[in-house]
């Protein structure tokens, strides 16, 4: 089961560029939360702060606190521990090209020294079933390279790879923006089903997508969180003028 995230006074910089300013946002457990906003508004930086990926850039800096479950990930844990609990799916599928599909999916477990063959088999099957890829690849799990799949299949494999370590939170940074509509709709169905078991944070440019998969939606603009509310409210009766302008297509 997933856990909630409590973000308090989060600030982030790239060099001198103040990309996130005083973000306060509670992400509910076992729900999907969508983050929308124009390009460069800070939403990607925000999700990258939730698994301490932001700081892998040498000029990046973060202040504030992020509590995942009962742990402050910036005070009480090492980045490695945080990322074991928080899975991430990136904008472009990034399979390990030299590994088979099987090895790709269980790579997170194997690198941590998980050696139980029988359980690895179970985990790979479960993760691939969860990401709706099992039926398409079950016959050449160990024969085909992860990079030989189509783009949509690769992305679902990457989701399976993230799910295999049974994370408490799943971060998705525009997971469908590089995919065709059919693959996109498969990924959306997937998110819709996974959110009962995991806390999902999804960044998207596509407002229909946010409306389709998420219960909660946050609107970012120029590094600030303008509005955070139920998706229904954001898309039917937003409280802030800027949110309304954005979702009606007047800018962005």
């Amino acid at each position: 089961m997933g856990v909630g995230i409590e973000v308090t006074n989060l600030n982030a910089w790239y060099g001198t560029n103040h990309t996130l300013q005083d973000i306060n946002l509670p992400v509910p457990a076992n729900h999907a939360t969508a983050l929308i906003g124009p390009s460069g508004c800070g939403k990607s930086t925000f999700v990258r702060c939730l698994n301490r990926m932001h700081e892998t850039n040498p000029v990046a800096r973060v202040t504030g606190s992020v509590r995942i479950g009962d742990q402050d990930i910036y005070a009480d844990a090492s980045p490695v521990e945080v990322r074991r609990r928080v899975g991430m799916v990136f904008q472009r599928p990034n399979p390990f090209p030299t590994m088979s599909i099987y090895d790709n999916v269980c790579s997170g477990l194997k690198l941590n020294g998980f050696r139980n063959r029988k359980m690895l088999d179970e985990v790979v099957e479960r993760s691939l079933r969860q990401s709706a890829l099992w039926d398409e690849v079950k016959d050449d799990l160990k024969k085909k390279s992860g990079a030989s799949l189509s783009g949509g299949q690769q992305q679902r494999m990457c989701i399976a790879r993230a799910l295999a370590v049974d994370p408490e939170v799943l971060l998705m940074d525009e997971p469908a923006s590089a995919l065709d509509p059919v693959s996109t709709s498969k990924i959306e169905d997937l998110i819709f089903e996974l959110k009962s078991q995991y806390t999902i944070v999804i960044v998207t440019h596509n407002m229909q997508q946010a409306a389709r998969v998420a219960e909660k939606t946050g609107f970012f603009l120029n590094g600030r969180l303008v509005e955070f509310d139920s998706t229904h409210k954001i898309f039917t009766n937003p409280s802030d003028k800027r949110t309304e302008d954005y979702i009606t297509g007047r800018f962005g």
Partner: protein
Amino acid sequence: MVPPIPVRENDGAAVEPSTSAGASEIRKFLQSRGNSALADQTFKGLMMLCAFCIFVVVALIVVELILQSQPTLQKFGLPFFFKYNVDPVTKMPLFWDPVNGTFYALPFLYGTLVTSLIALAIAVPLSLGVAIFLTEMCPKFLRGPLAFLTELLAAIPSVVYGLWAVFVLVPLLREHVNPVFMSVFNAPWLVKAFGWTHLFGDDGLFGGVNLGLGMFAAGVVLAIMILPIIASLTREVMTAVPHSQREAALALGATRWETIRIAVLRNARIGIVGSIILGLGRALGETMAVAMVIGNTPQIQMSLLSTGNSMASVIANEFSEATSDLHRSALIEIGLALFLVTIIVNGLARLLVWAVTRGAPARVN
């Protein structure tokens, strides 16, 4: 008025629960792994140690070279690299006479730089041609074998190149190639018009006696030796240029050559300069093949056909016979100088890359 975007309500239908035995066990297992901070620190320390070893080795070499060359450093000082005595009989400059204790290193500096420049002048255009052919226009069945052969050239030991040069290349140059250059460079009208540049005629680049051996032969051997290095590295960086870049140029109506120029060479230029620097480094330090064909005479002549000597080959030829302390120390100082020349040339090349690419948009890939 906000247009209605249909919000899909969660139908609440439970998906298969993931709290199977496997799931929680995985979490327990991962949590038991600790934060791995110690392992990470150890790894970092080990890698730093490896990198530090390089500094130590370089420092030790420099220190030792400086210590061992103290006798000549103190006796001759900096003039070691540019002064000379005058032979009382022939009135010619006398640079290097171990028997009488004259040690000035200018001819070796000159020989090293000139042979390396000849090598670059021949090898750079040739290897660019090889690389362009291999990446852009070679039929598939030829590509593998050709690339393999190019790389094979780099694997031949330099003494074998030297032998081949002595028995094949030197006679070939003497009989067929040098006469052509001599007839061109010594053409009367050229001598008359440009004789003042000292590039043409009897005291020009191809004047004097045609021995076959000499700086030109050494340069040609070096060119053959560095060609595979430059060609294969250049091929590598050109292959790394994404295909989409070529398509971008082709879609603008570019011809094959224009595509290569704006999409491939431009993107690969830093890598190409890098490979040329590596080739130059090999040429500067190459010892055996040069020693076998350069003629080993410590003199400076305008003519490329004249014999000369290089820094590396004088060390190889004389260190076993260096009986006096001063001779030994002079050779070691030449070694130190060779080291410095290599560093300076590399530095200049890097500066060139920096100057050319300053302010330019970032490289692709």
